[in-house]
């Protein structure tokens, strides 16, 4: 049983092929990283898996189920969560409300229940707030509970996105450059956080530039270059792969 399976996936934008015939699978419960130089197609791949882009060809399977034709919110309901390279915070809400949105899939009250404040909506609110507060504490944001999102520092927002994604209780969590723009201390904290998430049994897929982070925590690495799958394997295997060294590691002193 695989957590995520991608077969022959391709996406082109008006003649430019961003992802080209990529096939790989991801086993449950580990930390997987997708690396590659800028423009290798990592974020496009994320967007294809999340369902934000419709692939030109190929299939995506989540936990064995073909989701290629499903909308992003349907994939989310199947246990797929993610964060974004360019922050996608709800800046029109407080920090804790951002995380509470993450509880959307776990709500019981419907639209009318919400409108008329039925007991189910009250219960939802109570439960969501408690869960959100717990998750914010877990990512180290307990000081920001009722802060307005647009007044928070960048590093905190990065962690807020992770807390929000966790609130949906995903089985597969995709993190797009969680350490980008963070200082070394913050990066270390993120490192620990990712490991603890994986320790809870959530499959983590990471896109990251910080090689030290990637090499340190990944169980399995997928290397993309120019939209194509270049190599995959353990950090040690990948680091030894001459193609990878040539294409990526060699080109950038890490």
């Amino acid at each position, binding site marked *: 049983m695989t957590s995520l399976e991608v077969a022959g996936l391709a996406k082109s*934008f008006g003649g430019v092929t961003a992802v080209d015939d990529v096939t790989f699978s991801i086993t449950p419960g580990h930390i997987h990283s997708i690396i590659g130089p800028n423009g290798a197609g990592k*974020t496009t791949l994320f*967007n294809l898996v999340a369902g*934000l882009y419709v692939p030109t060809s190929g299939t995506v399977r989540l936990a064995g189920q073909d989701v290629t034709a499903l909308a992003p919110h349907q994939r989310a309901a199947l246990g797929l969560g993610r964060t*974004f*390279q*360019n922050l*996608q915070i709800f800046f029109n809400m407080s920090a804790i409300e951002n995380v509470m949105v993450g509880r959307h899939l776990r709500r019981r009250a419907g639209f009318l229940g919400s409108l008329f404040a039925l007991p189910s909506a009250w219960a939802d609110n109570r439960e969501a707030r408690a869960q959100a507060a717990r998750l914010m504490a877990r990512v180290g944001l307990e000081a920001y509970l009722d802060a307005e999102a647009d007044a928070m520092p960048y590093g905190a927002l990065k962690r807020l996105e992770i807390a929000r994604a966790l609130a949906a209780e995903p089985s597969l969590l995709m993190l797009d450059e969680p350490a980008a723009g963070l200082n070394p201390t913050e990066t270390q904290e993120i490192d620990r956080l990712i490991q603890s998430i994986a320790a809870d049994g959530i499959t983590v897929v990471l896109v990251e530039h910080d090689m030290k982070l990637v090499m340190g925590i990944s169980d399995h690495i997928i290397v993309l270059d120019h939209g194509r799958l270049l190599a995959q394997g353990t950090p040690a295997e990948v680091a030894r792969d001459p193609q990878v060294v040539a294409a990526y590691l060699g080109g950038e002193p890490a």
Partner: protein
Amino acid sequence: MSDFLQFVFSGLTVGAIYALVGIGFALIYNASHVINFAQGEFVMIGGMATVALIDLGVPLLPAALVAIAIAALVGVALEKLAIEPARNAGVVTLIIITIGASILVRGVVEVVLGKQFHRLPSFSGDQPILVGGATLHPQSLWIVGALVVLVVGLKLFFDRHPFGKAILATAHNRLAAQLVGIEVKTVLVASFALSAAFGAIGGILTAPLTLTQYDVGVMLGVKGFCAAILGGLGSPFGAVLGGLIVGLAEALAAGYVSSAYKDVVAFVMILLVLFFMPSGLFGTKGTERV
């Protein structure tokens, strides 16, 4: 057949005005990504200012030129005083600002020139020209002729003149334009002035055919917006085609289907285009980056 020709004449005349307003929308949108809901007011200013000047005894040509200049100045003022201070505002806010500005402009004209409606004498008399059984008003020739001249002029300006090229470059990529030393602020001001002038010319040319009043700008603005969207937002030449299509569709619908529903035609058309071709007939598709 002569009826058909008559409707085509009528449609092209009206369409040419929509086109002029539509070009204005496109120019401003290109430079600033603002939809200027005050665009119709430039048309109104053109007509009303010319009427007022002629009433003061100024001959037609100088009166028209001064009216165009006044409209251009209002355009510049709009950019400097209302758009620029709100540069980073959202779409809705900018829409409200331009709507507020249009109310302000109408209010000023209402106070200065009154609320009565006015007319201009036709440029070349009212003797209709007979063409294939249909009649063509000389003023229609002026309107369509002016559109052709302005479009060709605009094309040459964009292709040949360095400043025209700068405007195009800014529309294409603002940051890059800034990096190669284009004064984006000047481009903005010029775009507002230019689109105001186009609107004013439209207003002056139509005033002899229809009537002009302090509030004629509203509907013309909306129709011009239709033209701009139909042509693909941000494409001045698309807007010209969009305007002519809207005008023709209206006239033919009025003639053959129901005059009561001619305005509906334009809006139904725009809805269909938006539903099935969201980037307009001649626009290009963009992709959202995440």
